[in-house]
């Protein structure tokens, strides 16, 4: 029962990944693409966490911690590049 709930959650997260990818392909300006990149990042963070839950090993949960520490770095780098001074 619980396992089916987790599978439904995985399916919904994959669908929202597709929404982010649509904006990534379509986006008229660079900022739109970066917003889509941020959304894809958060979605795949949650996806990694749920995958760690499915496998049930504690060491798998270190990956979203490390990536959660580093994920905002890319967005800040691109935003500073747009503003002109990196």
């Amino acid at each position, binding site marked *: 029962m619980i396992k089916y709930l987790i599978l439904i959650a995985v399916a919904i997260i994959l669908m929202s990944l597709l929404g982010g990818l649509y904006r990534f392909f379509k986006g008229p*300006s660079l900022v739109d693409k970066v917003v889509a990149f941020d959304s894809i990042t958060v979605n795949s963070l949650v996806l990694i966490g*749920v995958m760690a839950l499915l496998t049930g090993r504690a060491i798998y949960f270190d990956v979203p911690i490390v990536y959660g520490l580093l994920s905002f770095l890319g967005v800040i780098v691109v935003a500073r590049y747009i503003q002109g001074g990196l």
Partner: protein
Amino acid sequence: MEIIQYLGGALLIMGSLSLLIASIGLIRMPDVYNRVQTGTKASTLGAILSFLGVGLLSIENWSETNWIGRVIILIIFIIITNPVSSHILMRAAYVMKIPFTIDTKVDKLKEDIENKVLEEPKDE
């Protein structure tokens, strides 16, 4: 302890639905500023709820350690870093002079720049 399991499952489903709503908003909104609004922040709530659900579900199943502490660290980090990155993104969009939609009524920032109350935002 069945109740904790079902509570965790419900939190996980609610969080992933919130992520889905964020991505629908990312598709439907008319300009960059509204996209940043809905896209990055509904996803913040979605990530918080989903990780809470993951932490609650991990209590019962596996005996070695539960993940509550790590989940709390991760949630604190998401709350701290997510508004910073989306704020700097919005400021970059304003510096690039991407136009607002035609629905936009007031723009106090532009008025104040024209009245020389403050200088134009740019790189520092």
